[in-house]
């Protein structure tokens, strides 16, 4: 009894410490964001929120006063002309964290640009002497776009980036999301390869991590795969469904930790996962599946072409709904938490801030639930689609 209550207190302490760290991490960011640049924050906390939700070329951990603590990440670019190029994200910033061009490229607010021949470097960075820029300097004199040079620095916000293009190269940088993706991969390997070792040793009662994940694996097998795909065919899809579920779950939960990337709230990631399900579904489509789509049996002849159109659209709406559901629920959850945390700073009210922080803790707990539910839902729908495709047509 004594031991149990002690561990309970310990758990409570750890939980409250985590909550405090989370609150601190988000609030200090916002504090800096709202206090540091009053002018930029005039449109509310949108920039602050978007900064947290979107991908970035560097990993921003915390801002203490005016010091940004960031982890620089590699920027890898495949230039269609010059081939592969590797930089560090820190190369694209000066000591005041203002964007500067580097190696013919320029990063501004999470966007990578290639400098074109029309690019006019600003006078303040003329000491950065790169070969391309020197040659571009000559252009500037001729074209006499003097005011545009300042424009690049002042209004870096806008979409208007003269002398820059987003075409002509492929950006495969290790961004914040990619770094998070790699971390989640390492975590998945660490967890499941360790668990797998126990099963390789032969029979034995589940222990430790194994007893945490085994019921989940059994649940996915018995209540998702077997039910939706069928007793005889589910085994082939188990590796995919398990990988899918745990990938989404781990990244959803990682996304809730302070300062982490928003990987499963990124539409490229959710689209990629949905396309996996899409292709697996189509490639495993049996005769019954295609006849159902192309020439639905048991329906009056005049209606069949209409159903054909609806079904063909249905093939494509399925992955789109998968993509958007996961993307929207995770991103929306983050926006809500950040908005509530930000409320106190925007209204400049201590009471609202305290209430908001407490409320954001509640929302964060709901977010944990959402993280699990969305992983479940994505896996469930994937298995349903696969189940429809592999069905033999015995209704």
């Amino acid at each position: 009894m004594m031991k149990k209550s002690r561990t309970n207190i310990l758990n409570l302490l750890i939980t409250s410490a985590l909550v405090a760290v989370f609150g601190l991490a988000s609030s200090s960011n916002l504090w800096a964001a709202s206090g540091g640049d009053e002018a930029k924050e005039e449109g509310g906390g949108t920039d602050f929120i978007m900064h947290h939700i979107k991908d970035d070329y560097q990993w921003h951990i915390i801002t203490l006063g005016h010091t940004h603590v960031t982890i620089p990440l590699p920027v890898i670019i495949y230039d269609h002309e010059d081939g592969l190029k590797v930089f560090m994200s820190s190369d694209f910033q000066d000591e005041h964290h203002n964007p500067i061009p580097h190696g013919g490229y320029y990063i501004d607010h999470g966007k990578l640009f290639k400098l074109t021949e029309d690019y006019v470097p600003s006078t303040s960075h003329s000491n950065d002497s790169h070969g391309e820029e020197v040659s571009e300097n000559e252009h500037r004199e001729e074209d006499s776009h003097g005011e545009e040079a300042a424009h690049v620095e002042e209004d870096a916000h806008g979409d208007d980036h003269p002398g820059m293009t987003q075409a002509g190269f492929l950006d495969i940088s290790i961004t914040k999301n990619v770094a998070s993706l790699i971390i989640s991969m390492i975590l998945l390997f660490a967890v499941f390869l360790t668990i797998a070792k126990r099963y390789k040793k032969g029979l034995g009662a589940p222990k430790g991590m194994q007893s945490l994940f085994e019921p989940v694996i059994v649940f996915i097998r018995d209540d998702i795969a077997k039910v939706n795909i069928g007793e005889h065919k589910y085994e082939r899809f188990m590796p995919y469904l398990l990988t899918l579920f745990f990938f989404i779950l781990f990244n959803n939960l990682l996304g809730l930790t302070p300062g982490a990337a928003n990987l499963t709230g990124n539409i490229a990631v959710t689209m990629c996962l949905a396309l996996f399900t899409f292709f697996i579904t189509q490639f495993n489509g049996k005769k019954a599946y295609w006849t159902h789509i192309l020439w639905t049996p048991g329906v009056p002849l005049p209606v069949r072409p209409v159903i054909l159109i609806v079904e063909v659209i249905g093939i494509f709406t399925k992955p789109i709904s998968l993509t958007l559901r996961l993307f929207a629920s995770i991103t929306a959850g983050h926006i809500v938490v950040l908005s509530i945390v930000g409320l106190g700073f925007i209204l400049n009210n201590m009471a609202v801030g305290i209430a908001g922080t407490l409320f954001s803790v509640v929302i964060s707990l709901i977010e944990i639930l959402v993280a699990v539910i969305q992983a479940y839902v994505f896996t469930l729908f994937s298995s349903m689609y696969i189940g429809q495709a592999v069905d033999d047509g015995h209704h």
Partner: protein
Amino acid sequence: MDLLIPDTGLFILQTVAFIILLIVLGKFAWKPILSGLKEREQTIESALLAAEQAKKDMQALQADNEKLLAEARAERDSILKEAMDVANSIKEEAKEETGKITAKMLEDAKATIENEKRAALAEVKTQVAALSLEITEKVIRKQLSEKKAQEALVDEYVKDLNLN
């Protein structure tokens, strides 16, 4: 990197990463885990079935024992009954025999008594005869003078005796 426009680089890297995850986890994690789970489930199931079978066997054995016991009991009863019958019949026989013997003994006794009686009577007769003779002798001795009369008297007596 807009919110709603998928980023090509991230998409490519995500695809590559997911394929690596699928292959590595599929081969080194899910395969042993799923087969291990299956094996364990089958073992548990067969163990449960074996336990059930053992229980059934036990019950059957118990039923057999009961049957055997019942049979034994029935046999014991029948043996007892038989023994009792035999004993009874022996008793009856003995009784009959005893009755016969008793009857024979009684008959014998009767016969002996009859014989004894006859003998006794005969002896009494002889005794009476002897006594009569003695008496006669004494009478004779007393009436010796009248020999003829005496003899007539004797004859008379003897006649009387013979008539008895």
